């Protein structure tokens, strides 16, 4: 049975295709219209009570029952924020003339939304791979040599993750006889479940499978990163929430992520790579929340993903605006831009305060749920280490990024300074809306909390207690004190940091070296061996054959021809002058030859198939009895 259900992703896919034929004067309106329609479509999806789900868009394909529209509270909260971010991201890049870049971004978002509403593993995998293969164009379109390499690395790593996911899901589904994508039995995890988990955590950028993230996001186009920072990792968080709630190994992995990103952010000189490391850090909170698996923790993971998409998008918009307007993203090439780009500074600062979980900003009401869940589960180390990572977040994203771009003692090059200016209106508008949402979520908690998968648990949680506010203020303000006291140590160096991508980047070189030297030498040796052992004897044989052909075969043929020519020459004199005599003589010879042939051959016609007769056989039958017997036997 197949039922039609207007999938939100379908609007994006069709919209992306039609973008090619939309006239230039209508393009900006069209670019806004499609994300608005997608957002509206998601708002019109049915609201489902906690613990229930609606299965829509069911399609029978071969022997599989595909579900394109599994609607429940978990999918709705992610669908809502993804479609909202699609609108903001498109508004931000509204002036980009490259239509294919918009198409790639929309297909990428469509892939993400498709994963979120997928009810089975096959549909999930389909959209999962679509995300990887469409988002890579957002890296390549930057047009630098480095972007090309980063894009290929991104693709290869994601193909590896996709294969792990595919292997795991086929194994798991064959064992269980169902392709439905629901909560897995994480307390009795099989190798198949671990394979699926590897596929998911690679997209969530969990170390050691994380290095693709700063590599790719630092090299993407200025608005490509705005899309990328929101969708891949958060779709993975959704998938983990759906299938791996309570998977204990995710708790230490999440905490390691949260701190790992902070450490690398200290060393980073490129502002967008720094933000990318802080994605790893922030997704660490969500992964830890999924690992804790309680209602509070899952609420926290979803709320933090929701808030994170907005503030991280805002931060990438701010740094993307700097890159777009100045052509630079390295701290060592920037500084003092407050005079040229003051509003971009304010918006980026709001993003920085939100990610740092300052009271009245979005991170405060979302991150604290996960920390509280850790303490409630009596995992004190989780709570304290996540709070430590929170200090690191403010240190870099709240202080280092704004300070070294808009203030600092560094003077940019004259060319950079001359280029610097406030970005176009659409970029400012996108940043303004994202900033407003960050503050709104931080101030009015019911807006977010009512959307969470466990609304009753969320309603009982109150982030604005005096203890929590003062705890956060003390941590963050004294982190600020530490920053200004140790600012000399934090002055960025023009370096890059080695990360896990070293293994495949250098490993790739080792592979080339292996191909170029040892493998090529073996290939040359085998080639020579072939030449001496195969080709030379073959040539000799050919030469001998040629000689045989020339002297023996050709000699025999020429000899025969010469003999026949001699006979013909002699027979020439035997012919009569009259045609009738010649014909009579020829027929006589032919008749004599036939008679001789029939007389001296035992069964010459027995080889003929049934029903076939020699011409004239019946006529000669009475005179040729022995041969006639042969003929009548047929």
């Amino acid at each position, binding site marked *: 049975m197949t039922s039609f259900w207007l999938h939100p992703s379908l609007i994006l896919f069709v919209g992306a295709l039609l973008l090619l034929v939309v006239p230039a004067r209508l393009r900006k309106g069209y670019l806004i219209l499609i994300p608005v329609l997608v957002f509206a479509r998601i708002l019109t999806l049915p609201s489902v009570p906690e613990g229930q789900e609606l299965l829509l868009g069911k399609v029978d394909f071969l022997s599989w029952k595909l579900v394109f529209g599994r609607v429940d509270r978990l999918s709705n909260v992610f669908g809502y924020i993804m479609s909202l971010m699609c609108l903001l991201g498109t508004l931000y890049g509204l002036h*980009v*003339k*490259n239509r294919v870049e918009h198409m790639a971004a929309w297909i990428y978002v469509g892939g993400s939304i498709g994963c979120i509403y997928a009810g089975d593993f096959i549909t999930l995998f389909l959209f999962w791979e679509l995300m990887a293969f469409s988002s890579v164009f957002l890296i390549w*379109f*930057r*047009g*630098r*040599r*480095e972007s090309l390499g980063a894009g290929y690395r991104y693709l290869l790593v994601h193909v590896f993750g996709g294969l792990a996911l595919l292997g795991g899901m086929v194994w798991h589904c064959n064992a269980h006889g169902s392709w439905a994508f629901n909560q897995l039995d994480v307390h009795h995890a099989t190798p198949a479940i671990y394979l699926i988990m590897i596929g998911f955590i690679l997209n969530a950028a969990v170390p050691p499978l994380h290095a693709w993230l700063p590599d790719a996001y630092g090299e993407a*186009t*200025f608005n490509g990163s705005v899309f990328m920072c929101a969708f891949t990792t958060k779709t993975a968080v959704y998938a983990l929430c759906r299938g791996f709630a309570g998977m204990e190994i995710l708790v230490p992995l999440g905490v390691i992520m949260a701190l790992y990103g*902070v*450490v*690398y952010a*200290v*060393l980073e000189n490129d502002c967008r790579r720094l933000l990318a490391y802080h994605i790893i850090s922030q997704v660490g909170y969500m992964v830890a929340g999924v690992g804790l698996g309680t209602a509070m923790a899952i609420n926290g993971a979803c709320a933090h993903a929701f808030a994170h998409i907005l503030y991280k998008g805002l931060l990438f918009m701010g740094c993307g605006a700097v*890159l*777009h307007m100045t*052509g630079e993203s390295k701290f060592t090439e920037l500084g003092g831009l*407050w*005079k040229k780009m*003051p*509003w971009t*500074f*304010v918006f980026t600062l709001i993003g920085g305060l939100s990610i740092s979980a300052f009271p009245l900003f979005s991170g405060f009401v979302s991150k604290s749920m996960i920390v509280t869940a850790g*303490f409630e589960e009596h995992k*004190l180390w989780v*709570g304290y280490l996540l*709070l*430590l990572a929170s*200090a*690191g977040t403010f*240190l870099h994203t709240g202080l280092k990024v704004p300070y070294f771009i808009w203030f600092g003692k560094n003077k940019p090059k004259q060319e950079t300074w001359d280029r610097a200016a406030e970005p176009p209106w659409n970029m400012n508008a996108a940043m303004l809306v994202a900033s407003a949402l960050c503050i709104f979520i931080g101030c009015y908690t019911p807006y977010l909390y009512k959307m969470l998968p466990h609304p009753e648990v969320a309603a009982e949680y109150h982030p604005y*207690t*005096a*203890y*929590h506010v*003062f*705890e956060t*203020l*003390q*941590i*963050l*303000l*004294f*982190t*600020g*004190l*530490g*920053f200004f006291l*140790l600012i000399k*140590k*934090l002055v960025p*160096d*023009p*370096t*890059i*940091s*080695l990360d896990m991508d070293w293994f495949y*980047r250098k490993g790739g070189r080792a592979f080339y070296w292996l191909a170029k030297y040892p493998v090529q030498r073996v290939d040359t040796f085998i080639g020579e061996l072939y030449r001496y052992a195969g080709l030379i004897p073959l040539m000799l044989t050919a030469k001998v054959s040629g000689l045989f052909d020339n002297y023996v075969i050709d000699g025999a043929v020429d000899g025969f021809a010469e003999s026949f020519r001699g006979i013909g020459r002699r027979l020439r004199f035997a012919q009569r002058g009259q045609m009738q005599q010649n014909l009579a003589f020829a027929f006589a010879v032919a008749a004599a030859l036939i008679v001789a042939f029939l007389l001296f051959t035992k069964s010459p016609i027995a080889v003929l198939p049934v029903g076939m007769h020699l011409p004239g056989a019946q006529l000669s039958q009475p005179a040729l009895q022995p041969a006639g017997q042969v003929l009548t036997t047929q």
Partner: protein
Amino acid sequence: MNLVKLIEFLRNHLKAVVRLCCVVLALVVLLAAIPAIVDKQEAHTEIEHWPAFWAVFGFVGCVLIIIVSKWFGHAGIMVREDYYEDTRNGSAIPKEHHD
């Protein structure tokens, strides 16, 4: 532009701004220590009852993150920017050509 003027004003009165920040820091620690304002029943462990515990936590945490990260970076993780470049290819990297 008003925003530029505001930032310029704050920069011109940097000492006052720094003093104000110090006052805010002290005020936050003091207020947090007053039980009538901050109820420490929510504390997760006994150590959190100590005055200025979270202030020390934030400051020490920040210093530790900076020192440990820098040590880690200088232990061979931070390398020159052209580390992954193919040195045999001397062509200049094209600049951004985004529209």
